[in-house]
C-alpha cells in the first residue's frame, strides 16, 4: 500500500487535524514503520468469528428520571455560552 502525502492529508481532513509540511513528512515515515508492524497479522489464519467471547449478558434498567447536573454545573467549563445554550461555530 502506498503511504504518501495525499493519504496523510486525507486522513488529516477526516480527523480534523491540520498538518504542517514537516508533520506530513514525518508521519509518512512513521506510518510506514507502524504498518509494517501491523502486517505481522496478514498471514495469520483465523476463523470467521469476531464476537468477543467474554460471556457478558446484556443489562437493562428502568428508564427513570433522576436529578442530574444543574445549569451552573453544566456550563462551568465553557466561556462559549448564550442564555441556556452552548455556543458553537456556524454549520454553513
Amino acid at each position: 500500500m502506498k503511504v504518501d502525502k495525499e493519504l496523510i492529508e486525507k486522513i488529516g481532513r477526516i480527523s480534523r487535524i491540520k498538518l504542517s509540511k514537516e508533520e506530513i513528512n514525518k508521519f509518512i515515515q512513521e506510518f510506514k514503520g507502524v504498518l509494517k508492524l501491523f502486517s505481522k497479522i496478514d498471514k495469520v489464519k483465523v476463523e470467521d468469528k469476531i464476537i468477543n467471547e467474554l460471556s457478558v449478558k446484556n443489562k437493562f434498567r428502568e428508564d427513570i428520571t433522576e436529578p442530574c447536573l444543574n445549569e451552573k454545573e453544566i456550563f462551568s467549563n465553557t466561556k462559549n455560552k448564550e442564555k441556556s445554550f452552548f455556543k458553537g461555530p456556524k454549520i454553513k
Partner: protein
Amino acid sequence: MNKIVKEAKEIDKEYNTFITLNESLEKGKPIVIKDNICTKGIKTTAGSKILENYIPVFDATVIEKLKSKGFSILGKTVQDAFGFGSFSTNCAYKTPKNPFDKERVCGGSSGGTAAFIKLSKNVKYGLGQSTGGSINCPSAFCGVVGLTPTYGLVSRYGLIDYANSFDRIGPITKNVKDAAYLLSIMAGEDKRDQTTQNKAENYTKYCGSNVKGMKIGLIKEAFSNDVQKEVKSSVLTAIKKFKKLNCKVEEVSFPSLKYVVPVYYILAMAEASTNLAKYCGLRYGKEKKIEGFYDSYFSDVRSENFGKEEKRRILLGTFIRMVGYRDDYYIKALKLRNKIISDFKKLFKKFDVLVTPTMPLLPPKFSEIKNLSPAEIYSMDFLTIPASLVGAPSMSIPVGEVKGLPVGMQLIANYFEEGKLIKLGDAYEKK
C-alpha cells in the same frame, strides 16, 4: 504546612510527579490519583493540553467510594497524554523521573503515581489506569506493586477513556496487601458503567494464605531473546521461590504472543481515535473565540492542543477504520483478539496463574529511547498486552534489583480470580 503536602512538594520538585497538588489536603488517608480519573473540583487533564482547564463537576465512582472510606486526595499525577505511552515521555506538562535514577524513565503511562508511591514515606496508596499495561509497566520500572483488575470488576464511570474495551482502573501501592485493600473498596457493580459485574470480594482475606499446590505456568515465549538477560534471570530466580513454597511450576507455550502487539495497537488506536473526536472546543476543554465555520474551528482547536502522539494515534486509528482498510486491520484484529482469548482460556484450564517478566527491559535512560521509532516503542509492550487484550487480571510485583534498577514480575490469572494473584504475590513478599 502539612508534612504530607510538604514532602509531596519536595518530591514533585525533584521528580515531576504531579500535575495538580492539593495543598489544602483534608484529614484522612492520603491517596494520589492518575490525572485521567475525574475528581470533583480538582483539575483533571488526562495529561493533555486539550483538557488544561477542565474541572469536573462530579467524582468518578472510584473516587466516591474511596472518599466514603476516609480517603483524601493529595494530588493528580503526571501521565502520558490520554495514556498514550510506555515511558511517561509523552506528557504535555512535565516528564516524571525514575526514583532509582533520574536519568531514566518511570514507565508509562501511570508514571507519576508509580514514582511517587515509591518515593513517599507518608503516602502508600495510589491509583493508576491501564489500557495496554499502563499500571504494570510503571510499577515494574519504579519498584512498586501494580494490580490491573479484571475488565468489569471496577467501574470506569468518570474515567477519561482511551479505549473503552480495554481501560481499567487499579491500585499502585508499596505492597500487595495495600493493593488488595484498595481493590476491595473500588470493586463492584455500578449502574453508571454497564460493563461492571457483581463480583466484588474482600481481597485482603487472601493475604497470608497457603499457596501450596498452586499451578503456575511459565510462558516460554516471554523469556525469549527479546527480553534482557538480567530481567530474565531475576524473574527466574523469583519463580524458584514459588517452588520452595510448594507451587507446581511448569513451562507452557503461548504462540500467539508474536502478534499481540499489532492486534492490540490496531484495536486501541481505532477506539482512541473515536474517543478523541469529542474534543473540539465545545462544552469543555480548550476552546477559542467562536468564529467561522465548524470545520476550521474544530480543526484549529484540535491541531493546536493535541500533542504529537495524540495526533499520531488519531491519524492511525482513523486510517484503520477507513473503507478499504477496515477489513484488513480492524476486523482482522477483532477476530484475532477472539482467538487469543480462546487460547488463554485453554491455558487457565490447566494453570492457576501464568507468569512473565512485566517489561522486557530495565528502565531505559531518556537518551536511549529518544531516537526510537513509534513502532519500536510499541513493540516493547508485548508482555503486558496479552492480559490487556483478554481482559484478565494481572499484577506486577518487584522481584529485586539489577545494577541498582528494579525488575518486575507479572502474574496473570483467569477472569475475576484476583484472589489468586494476591495470594501468590503476598506469599512471595513474605518469603
